[in-house]
């Protein structure tokens, strides 16, 4: 022991440990460099901020992408277009990507909130329906305004066991026979719009004062029939499934989801007065601090397999044609066709959601009707 103590004086001990530490550090750096050089994850990695609706992703998809390229979106729930627009206006580049509907997309661009870009840079974009890559409202000289995702008209679902004769108009929502048996989503911009449709208004997002007054009168008639204003589409599915309501408005595919949930047979129709609809896109926020992560992530997230799975889970059509082929190859063509997945041109017949001159007044009218 004495011999050892003599050999390893304090100075010697410090010299030795410093040498070992240095060697370990060099070795670690060298091996890390080797790993980096061999790693397939040569691109950027990390987390970016994504504000979107809950049906734009599913957890296994996120996990798989994280495992593959080490990019993870930090997702915040998007309640509505107006809310998203205001949020991006306020926080700007703190968000990197946001979802938005139809005419809201050019609105973001006009305000300098999103970047136009060439979606064809992404390999997966080749799988989109060609029509989805050429929407006039999303095309600018600087590029395309978003990566096309899903679409749907707003339709009316009803339980034929309780609702007869078979309706074909928005008017069924107001029928006193169905007091407390109707559910609509809590969308202060959209409910006045489809009441406007019923009133025969051509452009329900740009209503005149008189047209809005007509829509408001119809909402007053609608209110006693509405059991509750749904916060999300699962509320509507549950209410139709358990028979709490017999009539509801919603996107394509609710009938299937109710059936899968063990509910009654539900019928669906597009009102004869016409309907409103949405088609949404993923937009890259201008100045996003982590925007370099968005495109590699989209490249992975929009693969036909992930989009086909998204369709099966959430049941409304998407713009990814390659995913349709995956669905067909896996025996889901009947379902996909029933949800109009193979007819993306349908979007051209809808009144697209968007900000309009009467939006503020519509929200006020909605509040005045649905207040106490």
């Amino acid at each position, binding site marked *: 022991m004495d011999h050892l103590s003599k050999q390893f004086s304090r100075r010697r001990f410090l010299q030795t440990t410093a040498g070992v530490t240095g060697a370990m550090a060099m070795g670690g750096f060298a091996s890390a460099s080797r790993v980096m050089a061999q790693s397939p994850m040569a691109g950027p990695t990390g987390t970016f901020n994504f504000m979107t609706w809950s049906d734009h992703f599913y957890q296994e998809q996120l996990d798989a992408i994280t495992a593959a390229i080490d990019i993870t979106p930090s997702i915040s729930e998007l309640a509505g277009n*107006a*809310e998203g627009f205001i949020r991006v206006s306020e926080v700007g580049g703190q968000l990197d990507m946001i979802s938005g509907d139809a005419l809201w997309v050019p609105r973001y661009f006009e305000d300098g909130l999103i970047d136009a870009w060439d979606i064809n840079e992404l390999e997966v974009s080749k799988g989109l329906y060609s029509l989805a890559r050429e929407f006039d409202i999303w095309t600018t000289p600087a590029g395309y305004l978003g990566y096309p995702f899903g679409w749907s008209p707003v339709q009316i679902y009803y339980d034929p066991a309780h609702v007869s004769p078979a309706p074909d108009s928005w008017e069924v929502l107001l029928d006193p026979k169905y007091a407390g048996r109707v559910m609509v989503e809590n969308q202060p911009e959209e409910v006045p719009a489809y009441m406007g449709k019923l009133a025969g208004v051509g452009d329900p997002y740009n209503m005149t004062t008189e047209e809005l007054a007509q829509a408001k009168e119809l909402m007053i008639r609608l209110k006693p029939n509405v*059991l509750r*204003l749904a916060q999300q589409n699962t509320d509507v599915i549950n209410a139709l499934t*358990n028979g709490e309501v017999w009539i509801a408005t919603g996107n394509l595919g609710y009938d299937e989801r109710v059936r899968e949930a063990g509910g009654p047979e539900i019928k669906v129709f597009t009102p004869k007065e016409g309907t409103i609809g949405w088609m949404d896109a993923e937009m890259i926020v201008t100045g996003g601090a982590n925007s370099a992560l968005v495109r590699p992530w989209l490249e992975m997230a929009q693969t036909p397999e992930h989009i086909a799975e998204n369709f099966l889970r959430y049941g409304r059509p998407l713009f990814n044609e390659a995913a349709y082929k995956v669905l067909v190859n896996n025996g889901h063509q009947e379902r996909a066709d029933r949800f109009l997945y193979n007819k993306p041109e349908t979007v051209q017949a809808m009144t697209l959601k968007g*900000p309009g001159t009467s*939006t503020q007044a519509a929200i006020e009218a909605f509040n005045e009707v649905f207040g106490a």
Partner: protein
Amino acid sequence: MTSEVGRGTTPADAPEIGQRRSVARLWPAIPAALVLGVLFLGSMAFMVVFSFWRTDAGFHLVPDWNVDNYVKFFTVPTYLRTFGKTLVMAAAVTVAALATALPFTYFLVRYVSRRWQRIVLLAVIVPFWTSYLLRVYAWQAILGERGVINQLLMGLGIIDAPTRLFTYNDLSVFIVLVYVSFPFAALALYATLERFDFGQLRAAQDLGARPDQALRHILLPQIRPGIITACIFVFVPIIGEFLTPVVVGGTQGVLIGNLVINFFRGAQIAQGAAFAIVIAAFVTLLLIVFRRHLQVEDVVARG
């Protein structure tokens, strides 16, 4: 004992040292002052400013100073009616929460051993460990058309078909809010009752007071701070409540918070801000009234 001032200082230095000491005493308040100043007063100041602006057709806030948003609140019947209904709901829930929490805590403090008091109080607090949303949704499963109560009533043969008496109306909102508020009231009352000397009630009765007189003249005045705290804890949050009406209230159970949310979701920031300020002003006014007439300072002044 030598005073600190006396240690090597002259009497002329004393005021300066006193000032320095009082400044030194203030520093622990700095974090709270920052939090309150920045997160509360700062954001509130923004809201006040926005409430006097307007939102243009492009959803931008325009610094075009006006009082239109306030005029709208006080001239559109729906808004006044909804606010009035919210106040009535908050008052009713406060009374109900006190009416249930007071006997409960009285019994607990007076007749239950210390060990069991802790266990029972824990049981009162346990629901707080789950999310508020989850608890309210659970009530939907209890009160709903296919819910437990309807099943029970049908099982007992009291009703033939499910009734909507318990859900999607003001009653369901009231029931759920009483449930949600009960722990706040109970904990506030427990803290006061725990320090009450019950011997005073016996003494009052020995001197000829009836039990109800002893409660009114001996107990209630002494637990007043707890009652006031419970009132504030229950009444104030309900004025801004929006989740419970959404989940169990349906279109009949709407409160003012739901309309405010709609304005913000619809990007009508100026209008929403004005409504929020009216509500905040009302709450502030209410607290001032409490302070003036019910000596609410007792709540914080007790050592």
